[in-house]
């Protein structure tokens, strides 16, 4: 008996130790990036490194003043906002249709949505580069956001589909019997219920666009996004510029993942079916 208690205890210890270790594995590298981004350029190039940041903003100020960087940051945000709007405006109606109606072609539509996930989507930027030059969309935030929407739209459709499926039809039907038309029932009954979920999927679309590198690098020349700009300057940029850039890329992503954490599983779990 004492033996099994002891082994139970050691298993428990092992379990907690591995959880702590795995948390350190995820957070450690992020911490080291923060240490570097919050230290002065001199300290970063000094050796050996210190594990405590000196909370010096010189690197970040250098980053902000680096020629073209602020424009790239603004471009990134613009593209991400466009992507967010497009994927929700296009995706939410489709999600609603998939959740509420049975119609011919529904399966085909779902298969195409799932198919987009099984393709290296950024590659589609290659033929679009030509198409964009012909239509004058090349090197614009609008054009790039269309490509990013292709990445984000399937997620938007799938998550809104699961959101609408979670709202009982009876609620809508009750609103109709009380004199609401279809639109009013949607606006006053359904929308308030799913608004948090819609926000989460909008945020997710923002993050997808914000993080995307390949299509951004192929489709922009003057109006680089932050990722494309950093990529282009990887060879020549000093270390502190790279680290400050990485830091600026990471911070909003961490905040956003925190905001959507409840919906992550709805987003990915649904692909099983």
């Amino acid at each position: 008996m004492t033996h099994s208690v002891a082994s139970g205890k050691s298993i428990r210890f092992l379990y907690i130790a591995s959880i702590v270790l795995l948390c350190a594995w995820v957070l450690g590298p992020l911490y080291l990036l923060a240490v570097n981004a919050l230290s002065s350029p001199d300290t970063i190039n000094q050796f050996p490194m210190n594990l405590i940041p000196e909370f010096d903003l010189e690197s970040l100020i250098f980053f902000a003043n680096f020629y073209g960087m602020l424009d790239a940051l603004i471009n990134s945000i613009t593209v991400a906002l466009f992507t967010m709007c497009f994927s929700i405006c296009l995706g939410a109606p489709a999600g609603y249709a998939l959740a509420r109606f049975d119609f011919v072609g529904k399966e085909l539509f779902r298969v195409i949505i799932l198919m987009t996930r099984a393709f290296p989507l950024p590659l589609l930027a290659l033929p679009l580069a030509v198409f964009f030059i012909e239509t004058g969309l090349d090197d614009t935030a609008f054009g790039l956001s269309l490509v990013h929407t292709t990445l984000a739209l399937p997620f938007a459709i799938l998550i809104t589909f699961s959101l609408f499926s979670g709202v009982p039809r009876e609620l809508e039907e009750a609103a109709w019997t009380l004199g609401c038309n279809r639109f009013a029932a949607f606006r006053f009954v359904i929308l308030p219920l799913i608004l948090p979920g819609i926000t989460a999927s909008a945020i997710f679309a923002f993050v997808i666009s914000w993080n995307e590198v390949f299509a951004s690098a192929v489709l922009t020349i003057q109006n680089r996004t932050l990722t494309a700009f950093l990529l282009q300057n990887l060879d020549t940029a000093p270390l502190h510029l790279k680290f400050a850039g990485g830091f600026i890329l990471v911070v909003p992503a961490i905040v956003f993942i925190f905001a959507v954490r409840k919906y992550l599983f709805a987003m990915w779990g649904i692909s099983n079916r």
Partner: protein
Amino acid sequence: MWNQAKKLPYLLIAPSAAFLMIFFLYPFASVITQAFEHSSTDGYSLTNFQEVFSHWKFSISLENTLLLTAAVVPIQLALALLMATMVNSMRKGRDLILYIWTIPLGISDLAAGIIWLVIFEQTGFLNSLMLNLGLIERPVALLTYQNPMMIFVAIALAEIWRATAIMLVILVAGIGLIPREYYEAASVFRASKWQQFIRITLPLLKPSLQTALILRVILAFEVFAVVAALGGTLFPVLMGETYIYQFDLLNSGAAAAIALVILGLSIAFTLIVLRILKVPKGVTM
């Protein structure tokens, strides 16, 4: 009223369907034609492929991409399975731990490359650690062409760090769908935790394993920015070559040809996974 509006569902999906036609199906078709078109010949030819395949960098980048995938994905699968089962048996702090473990999901591959550069660059933390341990006397350059193994390890670590979370999320969602009763029944028959994992979790997790593997491997074939940040030109991969052809050499035919190679690899692998992890019809939950 649900059945009255026959046209409504079509009106609702029309915008997104049209969008996907223009920005998914059309470019998908034209990347294929682009790969077979060459300015020197009329009609379709294999000139682009010959050009790409005969370049010395092609076989290296193909090899690098495949090796990296083979090294990274099995570790990620094992790690994600371990983390998912741990999360599943957690009572306290589940949400916090899960949030921490899924943070990399929101991090750009470029940022992940830069994060690991912090550790591996010459005046970075790995050198500092080795100095403090007395292993070296002055900082050594780790990511150089004399050190291809170190570049590979750095890229592999960055990939494992960044992209395990995506598998974790899919697997956690899948494990959540397995009825608790199965485990209770297994406990009644004194099945050990390990037996429960092998006999219940793994077989019932097949659909999620399928999704997770397909998604992850396709992303692994697309590896690009992590490599650019850590290896630069020292570790050529397929996606990087595509970028060079398209953007630096302005040879979109050759870029499309490599794109088709990546696409072909992705489709071939998807079919293999679907075949190996075959889910019988009607068993999905």
